[in-house]
């Protein structure tokens, strides 16, 4: 298994950056997710690691070996594509055996290995079917088997669940993660779905506009987003972000309500905001919104209230076009137009600089 290291890797198409210089070390056995909206450079990054795309500048190391200019087949990596890339004229078995045949592995060994991965992925019963007759989930299992059979040093997966129906997706997500836990193979996984990234990644690399926004564990990117983009992108809905004005330990929210800024943040805010005239962005996750508190500091008008199954989501309008979302128990319904008093869990309150859009940290002022 392998450690993958990217040093100042960048990719330009003509004058525009597809990937801005990027440093990243992927540890042996790690499951790392490249996450971002379409066109953010995540797939290009993956393809550069695989060698399907040439870097413009920078170095790629595989276990310390410089593979920047090595041919894809010399990198000992396996690639799983979104559209399966199975050969439709071959059976599942032939598809899985294909990479081994390229390496001139003896026949007996091939069939033993194919049987082994087929058992692992529970696809023994479909080995003699052609891909065209298989469901999306099974096709992706065959594609995974084809990647696994070679026992490569690393797996690169480009939105492998993107083409599957929603009903298969959750199950396959768990299957791929289980497989990783059993194999402990270094895996780089590309997706635009933040739920997938949170559920699967040991660490998540969040990219936007060709640039890495944050690298961190699911817990870090959820609770301590590095900037507004990450705060918005992670979570469904994303973090509530309000343009506020800070003074004297209070943040005045749109609509006039004032929330008390947790003591630990005050010094950092005083320091960070002296160039912004007190303007600050207050962020908090939907589960930090507490309603029906007797001494709530803020108020808003119910914009909508909807059931999500196990919980419900309350949407409050603080001012024209400023709506916040709160995760509630499903016991009480709130009619549209009702005024609600609410409060924000101080432990979950976060602050961002309005100009740099970066998070303001308790200890270090502006990031």
């Amino acid at each position, binding site marked *: 298994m392998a450690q993958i290291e990217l040093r100042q890797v960048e990719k330009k198409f003509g004058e525009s950056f597809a990937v801005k210089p990027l440093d990243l070390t992927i540890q042996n056995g790690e499951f790392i997710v490249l996450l971002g909206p379409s066109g953010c450079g995540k797939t290009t990054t993956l393809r550069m690691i695989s060698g399907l795309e*040439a870097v413009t500048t920078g170095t790629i190391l595989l276990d310390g070996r410089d593979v920047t200019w090595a041919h894809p087949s010399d990198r000992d990596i396996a690639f799983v594509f979104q559209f399966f890339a199975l050969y439709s004229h071959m059976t599942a078995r032939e598809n899985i055996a294909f990479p081994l045949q390229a390496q001139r592995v003896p026949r007996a060994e091939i069939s033993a290995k194919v049987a082994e991965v087929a058992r692992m992925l529970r696809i023994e019963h479909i080995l003699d079917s052609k891909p*065209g007759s298989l*469901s999306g989930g099974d096709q992706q299992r065959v594609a995974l088997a084809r990647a696994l059979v070679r026992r490569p040093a690393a797996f690169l997966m480009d939105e492998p669940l993107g083409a599957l129906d929603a009903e298969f997706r959750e199950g396959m997500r768990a299957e791929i993660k289980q497989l990783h836990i059993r194999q402990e193979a270094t895996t780089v996984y590309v997706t635009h779905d933040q739920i997938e990234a949170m559920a699967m990644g040991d660490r998540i690399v969040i990219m936007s506009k060709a640039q890495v926004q944050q690298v961190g564990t699911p817990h870090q990117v959820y609770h301590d987003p590095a900037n507004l983009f990450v705060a918005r992108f992670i979570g469904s809905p994303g973090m509530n972000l309000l343009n506020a004005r800070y003074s004297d330990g209070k943040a005045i929210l749109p609509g006039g309500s004032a929330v008390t800024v947790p003591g630990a943040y005050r010094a950092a805010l005083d320091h960070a905001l002296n160039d912004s005239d007190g303007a600050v962005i207050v962020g908090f996750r939907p589960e930090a919104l507490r309603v029906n508190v007797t001494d709530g500091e803020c108020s808003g008008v119910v914009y909508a209230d909807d059931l999500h199954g196990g919980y419900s989501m309350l949407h409050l309008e603080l001012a024209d076009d400023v709506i916040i979302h709160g995760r509630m128990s499903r016991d009480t319904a709130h009619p549209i137009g009702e005024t609600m008093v609410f409060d924000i869990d101080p432990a979950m309150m976060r602050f961002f600089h309005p100009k740099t859009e970066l998070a303001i940290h308790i200890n270090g002022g502006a990031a």
Partner: protein
Amino acid sequence: MAAANQSPRYYVNYSTRVDKVGLRPQINTAVRATVAVIVTVIMLIPVIWMGMTAFKNRPDAVSVPPKVFFEPTLEGFVFLLTDRRQLTAAEDEQLSARNDLSYFEQVALERGQSIIGQSAFPSQLINSLIISGVSTFFSVAFGVLAAYAFSRFNIPGKDDLLFFILSQRMLPAVVVTIPIFLMYREVGLHDTHLGMILLYTAFNLSFSVWLLKGFIDEIPREYEEAALVDGYTRLQAFRKVVLPQAVTGIAATTVFALIFSWNEYAFALMLTSDVARTAPPSIPIRLGTGGIEWAAIAAGSLLFLIPVVIVTFALRKHLLRGVTFGAIRKG
């Protein structure tokens, strides 16, 4: 979503593959441009040659080896547009003495001929314009309606009908000329504009229905259905929503239909004589007295080329997209 579950696709649109990095893109572009220019020149040689011949005099046109540099003259055009008679020696002398001759008369005189009237070519060119213009209009107009119907409605026996329509194109035109000639003579359509327009329209229709159906299939139904629930009738929705979006297809079809009817030779030769004769069968028989007037034939061909070139040029924007988009994929 449905597409994802169908047969898998190959994923091979590598933009800059490592194994291709060695080839520098600039060289690549230069090579491509050179090849394109060479191919274009080769393709254009006959046209250029024709253009040159049109401006040659008789000896230059037939000289061996062919002349690339020559003194241009309008002799070919004069011979194309006029009927002439050979002068006797006395008449020649008499005419040569006069100095009030027009340019045309002078050119004719140099060859010892005098002009006795306008040739039939201008009126044949006009016939061509009328017949191919009107037939193209009708074949596209009917074609777009039929194609729309085939594309949108559940017509009983739709596939058979479409095949039947296409089968119209399977016979070579020459095979049916004799029966059509006999029929036309019987009903009085022989050598009439109407006869030719009907014939070309019928012939082009099958082609235009198929081509246009491909284009209309690509226009999402939702557009019209939105208009239908918004309070428009089917015909209004067709006119306001479908037609503007089918412009590309209509342009491509128009050009193809026009080129067919404009260039058509076999029917025109058999079914027309004086009144409705079109240009194609008349150009090759520009025989002068005592030999073929190559310059006149070339001049006729050149004039004949111009209208199609203009139309194609005017519609080129749609055409390029149309040819690569609808025709090849669906048509």
